[in-house]
């Protein structure tokens, strides 16, 4: 069972739709411990991505994901721009030339992408950032590969792990990003970036569920 370029496009579109739908929610989370723009920024970026996809010439999955990354870098701004931009640029690099990907490919690509985000943002687990949703998801994928689980099963587990990681940010005191300026006052709020990252992986599971 594999995911092809159309599946990836479907996933990107689904994420764009979900971000639009949850724009207020993401922005509200950011206003509690940030500057009230995460939903607005991600929505602006993903709308630009969708527009870009229209005209995009058919190509491999890597090229597609690279385009997504470039577009996010130049339209999102803030912390989200470089971070999500890097995530997709790295996903693209890791899937360069591929017309379809397996669970193994996806796992390796996401691992590389998350490492790229950490190289850019210097965040560790428990810093109350999107990393808290992304890293556990990658570990879950590794485990799924080891268990020779299906693509669908792997995606399901990674989405669950991301969900737990997202909720786990609530009690944390932020050590990276805008929220860290609040010190203790950042505890008790769910991190917006972890929330959007969970959405991203949850939609992969939902869109590719039958892969």
């Amino acid at each position: 069972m594999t995911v092809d370029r159309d599946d990836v496009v479907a996933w990107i579109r689904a994420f764009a739709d979900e971000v639009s739908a949850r724009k207020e929610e993401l922005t509200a989370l950011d206003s509690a411990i940030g500057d009230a723009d995460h939903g607005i920024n991600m929505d602006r970026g993903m709308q630009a991505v969708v527009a870009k996809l229209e005209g995009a010439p058919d190509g491999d999955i890597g090229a597609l994901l690279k385009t997504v990354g470039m577009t996010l870098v130049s339209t999102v701004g803030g912390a989200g721009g470089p971070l999500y931009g890097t995530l997709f640029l790295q996903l693209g690099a890791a899937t360069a030339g591929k017309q379809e990907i397996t669970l193994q490919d996806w796992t390796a690509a996401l691992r590389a992408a998350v490492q790229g985000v950490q190289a850019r943002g210097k965040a560790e687990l428990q810093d109350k950032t999107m990393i808290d949703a992304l890293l556990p998801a990658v570990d879950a994928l590794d485990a799924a590969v080891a268990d020779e689980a299906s693509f669908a099963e792997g995606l399901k587990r990674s989405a669950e792990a991301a969900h737990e990681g997202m909720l786990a940010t609530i009690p944390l005191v932020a050590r990276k990003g805008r929220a860290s300026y609040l010190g203790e006052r950042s505890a008790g709020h769910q991190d917006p970036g972890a929330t959007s990252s969970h959405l991203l992986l949850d939609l992969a599971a939902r869109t590719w569920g039958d892969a």
Partner: protein
Amino acid sequence: MKKLINDPADVVREALQGLEAAHADLIKVTYDPYTVVRADAPVQGKVALVSGGGSGHEPMHGGFVGMGMLDAACPGEVFTSPTPDQMEAATKAVDGGAGVVHIVKNYTGDVMNFEMAAELCRSEGAEVEAVVVDDDVAVQDSLYTAGRRGVGTTVLLEKIAGAAAEEKRPLKEVAQIARDVNAMGRSMGMALTSCTVPAAGKPTFEIGDDEMEIGVGIHGEPGRERRAFAPVHEIVEMMAGPIVEDLPFSKGDEVLAFVNGMGGTPLIELYVVYNELNAFLKGRGVTISRNLIGSYITSLEMAGCSITLLKLNDELTKLWDAPVKTAGLRWGV
């Protein structure tokens, strides 16, 4: 939300169009991507200063582009740091062959976007020095965090480093002077009301009629603590106290005192604040030898103020006094 705007999505572009229409003698504006560039750029043989950040802090940064200050500014969406392509375009437009200084306020987004931009520019052969401003004493135990925010000192740094660049000093020296200003400057802000991000449509934070936010950021980030509203006499102590403790000022020191309005606070109140600050510093034997009073680094329509103290020496004083001709700051010409 009541603002003098049309569609919230168009605020930044329309404000830039207004800036361009009003100050064609000083600046050029590009819209894809957004940049505000000195009209006579690139100035050959002069180190170029490029800054940028989210919009909503006007006149910073676009209003500081011109002779004696910035060569270019990169305006992001409201409260959202600009993107690497803007910084790359601006850097290329102003590079006069003597190198470019990126003035970056210490916010994760700004830092990462400027980093990516610097990587791009260097890969194309440009000489880029990045200077990060992190002067906000409201942020505590900054050791394990993203560090302190860049606020009021940015304005003073852009003016002073701009004067040094105008003297045709070399890249390393201009960057060093900028870092000295950051090292000698400290700020703290407070808010009486919240601001409303146009695209968000509602106040960033709730605050009672008898409350104030001490240590607030310039994006309406909550600050050190929520306190009961107090007379300005006490408020100035709450802000100036931590500043002088953080950067030990000693008797006889000379400082530049910058009392800044957050956007919704009128000048009459800022002069009352300055009067209290002046008395506070006199009490500690510190002399204000230069001052700046007004709304120069704002937070949309937030009511409140910030205080910045910059320890001066003859060199910094001379550069501060040097001519400047921008939409936001102008003297000597």
